[in-house]
């Protein structure tokens, strides 16, 4: 796929950064994609699609700190691969069975939680919730930006973010964490 962009590049460094990502991460991305798709051609398609998405959101991707870049690319690749898998299988997005409280969870809630307990509870979350929390709160992407990078519809990203926060809160409450 050839993608046409309208872009202005400041320096030669920027011109080669995209190629650096390709050379540095393509094997990792392929391994992640193959782990989801178990098909060589599909895995290559997922890697290619991920690079297209990264190119489309280049400014955002280029602002990810170097120390977080590998994790960022892994998450984007995995979700792109999952999206490709679902498209191939024509599966609809399965929403969780979590009861939908009409009240959104304020992120202030998590600021009052014991840090170690928060870390442990995060570690126990399902992968899809971890991914969306990572992209929304660590990379500070909007739902639309996550949608553009992963192919997951923006509304799904929003709902999944809310469900992730609710599940995290519920898990903390069930652990007996009392918020002061």
């Amino acid at each position, binding site marked *: 796929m*050839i993608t046409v962009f309208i872009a202005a590049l400041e320096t030669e460094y920027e011109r080669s950064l995209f190629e650096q990502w390709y050379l540095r991460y393509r094997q990792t991305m392929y391994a992640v994609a193959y782990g989801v798709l178990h098909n060589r051609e599909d895995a290559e398609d997922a890697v290619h699609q991920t690079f297209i998405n990264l190119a489309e959101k280049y400014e955002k991707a280029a602002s990810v700190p170097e120390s977080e870049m590998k994790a960022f690319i892994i998450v984007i690749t995995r979700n792109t691969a999952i999206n490709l898998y679902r498209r191939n299988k024509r599966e609809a997005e399965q929403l969780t069975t979590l009861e939908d409280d009409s009240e959104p969870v304020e992120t202030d809630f998590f600021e009052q939680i014991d840090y170690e307990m928060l870390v442990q509870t995060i570690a126990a979350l399902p992968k899809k919730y971890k991914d969306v929390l990572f992209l929304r709160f660590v990379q500070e992407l909007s739902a639309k930006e996550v949608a553009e990078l992963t192919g997951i519809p923006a509304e799904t990203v929003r709902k999944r973010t809310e469900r992730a926060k609710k599940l995290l809160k519920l898990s903390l409450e069930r652990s007996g964490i009392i918020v002061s």
Partner: protein
Amino acid sequence: MSHEQLKKALSETLIPEYEQSVPETAPHEFSPAFEKKMKALIRRREKSYYRFVNTAGKRVACVAGAVLVLSALSVMKADAIKNAFRDFSVQFRNVFSTVRPADPHDAPKTIEEKYVVTYPFDEGYQIDYQYESDTLCSITYRKGDTTVFFDQYTKELFDADVNTEDAEMIPYTVDGREAIFFLDNLGAYHLIWDDGDYILYLLANVDKETFLEIADSIKKAE
């Protein structure tokens, strides 16, 4: 609304977890088709199509995104747009519209006859970029902030996402075949057409008259 602790906890938990989650596999030998597509994408990404200076005088990256909007000058119903691009399959998306040849299968797999731009550019223009492969020939002319891109693709390779935000679509034919011709919201004209064997794509931020003169000058190399 603060989420510093949440952000810290997510970073410290998930970054190492993600990095350790990659399955251990032998290095993969990517297919030639993949390498070719990636090479083209990297070259495209590394090209600066044209530099835009915003009102603050800074260079900006303009990545447009919205659905196609019809111009008052050439009102076409949605069905008419889709029918107008008989030689192309156009999928309108939120960020770009994806354009592919409707039937790439019987076309040459490699570029056997090359097209060239014969327009007499004035002395201020220079060739800024040139690339040739079996499946893609690309040339860029530049003069200051004015840029002219011309690409020739095999049909199998061509699969473009084009900036159609607020685009003014213009009915146009090339050698009797309907082409995709529009003015984008950044002041550039796009012309994509199928000559039967290849896909040709001209993109330039010049006035319409000059653009069409350049388009008319594109011919098969002798």
